């Protein structure tokens, strides 16, 4: 959040970070939340001035600051809390993935955050599941097809 705010505003301030990390102190669990760049973005649907638009080319939901009138309906519409207001409570801020080289990913040594193509993410999950099946199969005495 420090890296994100510095990238976007040249000042360290987590309230201006486009990505958020929610901390559960009792069991010391940390969960990040960030704009999912929805295919049907509610934020864009409610925006009266088309300041939020789905970019067909990049897949991102673009925010056009000069068109924004500050009505904050997008903040209400977003189910994820990913359309944020800055620390002054005035300007809308949202994740633009830093043009493909996100500042948050660069400082995350734990690799809790990674920036990958969605197809690769799907494929990596499939491989993981398949690997588990393969292991189970190899442990079965009679093999997969008894």
């Amino acid at each position, binding site marked *: 959040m420090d890296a994100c705010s510095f990238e976007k505003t*040249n000042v360290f301030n987590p309230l201006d970070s486009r990505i958020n990390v929610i901390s559960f102190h009792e069991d010391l669990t940390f969960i990040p939340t960030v704009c999912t760049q929805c295919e049907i973005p509610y934020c864009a649907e409610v925006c009266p001035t088309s300041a939020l638009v789905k970019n067909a080319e990049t897949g991102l939901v673009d925010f056009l600051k000069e068109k924004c009138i500050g009505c904050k309906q997008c903040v209400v519409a977003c189910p994820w809390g990913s359309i944020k207001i800055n620390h002054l409570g005035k300007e809308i801020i949202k994740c633009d993935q830093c043009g493909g080289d996100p500042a948050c990913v660069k400082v995350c040594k*734990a690799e809790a955050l990674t920036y990958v193509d969605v197809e690769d993410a799907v494929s990596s999950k499939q491989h993981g599941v398949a690997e588990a099946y393969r292991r189970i199969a190899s442990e079965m005495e009679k093999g997969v097809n008894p």
Partner: protein
Amino acid sequence: MIDGGYQGTILRVNLTDRSVKEEALHEDWAKRYIGGRGYGTRIIVDEVDPKVDPLAPENKVVIGTGPLDGTTAPSSGRVMVITKGPLNNTIACSNAGGYFGPMLKRTGYDMIILEGKSSEPVYLWINKGKVEFRDAKHLWGKLVNDTDRLLREETHLEAETMEIGPAGEKMSMISNVMFNGHRASGRTGVGAVVGSKNLKGIVVRGNKGISVADHDGFLEAVRSTRAILAANPVASGGLPLYGTAVLVNIINSVGSLPVRNAQDAYFPEADKISGETLRTQNLVRNEGCSDCPIACGRVTVIKEGKYKGEHGGGPEYEPIWSLGAMCGVSDLNAITMANYLTDRYGLDGISAGSTVACAMELYEKGYMPAKDAPFPLKFGDPDALVETIRAMGEQKDEFGRLLAQGSYRLAEHYGHPELSMSVKKQEFPAYDPRGIKGIGLEYATSNRGACHVRGYTIAAEVLSPGLDRLAYEGKAAVTKFLQDLTAALDSLGMCLFTTFGMQAKDLAQLYSAATGFDCDEKEFLKIGERIWNMEKLFNLKAGLTGKDDTLPPRILSEPIVTGPSKGEVEDLGKMLGEYYSLRGWSADSVPTKERLQELGLQDLS
């Protein structure tokens, strides 16, 4: 006008009349003492009589951050507590990780000065520029982890907390100030000072950003220092993998792990309490402090036995040793439970464990009558360990109250002060000077009593090939160098563990880019030396003398019995004279006029 790094404002809180005042940060002091430890000490030197009773309302507490707190400089989230410590009357500076430091800075304050004494228990709620005194009667007596949760429930879930536990409330001489429920500012009894002011805690939530002077220069310094840590085998290998407890086997393998109140320094059962065992037996995941790429913290759970289901943070290397080997205990689950209890009561893990060990020796030797102990205090008994820590935390009986004052007062009470493994009444940590010579000099000369983190010579003597651990040559120079470096580093808000890879020039580069101050390696170390001498002057005025720069008689005269350092004793005299002369101090440990002049401290002598 400072261009970056600092917020430029200090909050002064008077607990007696419940008034608050904002004061400007002195640019001159920022340049001469950086922030945190250095700047905070300068405030105490300016405002607190060194002879004051540490628990009197006239003593003050500075909660300080440094110019790198809240930035992406690696491991830059430390918060420092500076006051006159009640354990031994020295200038105390104790720092902790977690998230409080950066959040304090985002409230717009670099530091808070606490003065006076509240008539009733209170806590402070500092929320986006508003400071509120809140009643804390319902929190008095609550454990640290419960207090942390309740404070956030009563204020804001995204706020960060500082709190004391029952140990601090009851003014135990070995009590901590805690942050985020389990991060500890330990040593010297700083918790008791906060307790003496009837202050249960501070909750902070801010919305102010932190700027740096040189945007591109700072990004480059962050990139290069993070790369250094990523390539370092300690910072990116041992520490994240096994936590600080990676040291158990390492230090034991050089026969320098004090055992049974330092009656020996080799623990055959070390692997049962090692970082490796902790990883397989208790670790849930790592925990990182603010902006830290190392993440050495341990989130743990006890999976078996009578403490099954208990969970929390740690244990770190030092309490594993003090509650483990030092007490002859090899049951890691009991050690972990005892560690949770020290955190929950707000007791210093090193001092608490070493005090239990001292009590065990007094008991076994018959110096402590059996009737004084609620149960037999036998070395190696895990139940005796856990229940003694509980008694120290609760202080419900004479036994608990006595032990909560630390090993020195305990051993003195029974007529055997020599059995306290302490320097300036403060228990030494997990490295036996008989097997690692330089660390003994560090214990003897540390400005807050025995301590490893004023100048961590272990890095040079054991962890990296360099100095022969059993030699005396060169130890005075490395001790002075590391003490100066650490004093400056602490003042930045950086974690000591960055120095496994980073050097003075790297720290100076981050500092310069953040603040716009011109500072190279040489100047950075000079600032450290200035801070060290300023602390020393305070201690001399508080009544400490060169005679206090010594070690427990056992370390100086009783040889280690078994293991790789068998037969060794520490000969402090072989290093102390050289150390004083390198420091520019007289043979009786007083800074000379000339050296103070060089450091620009002539006004303070």
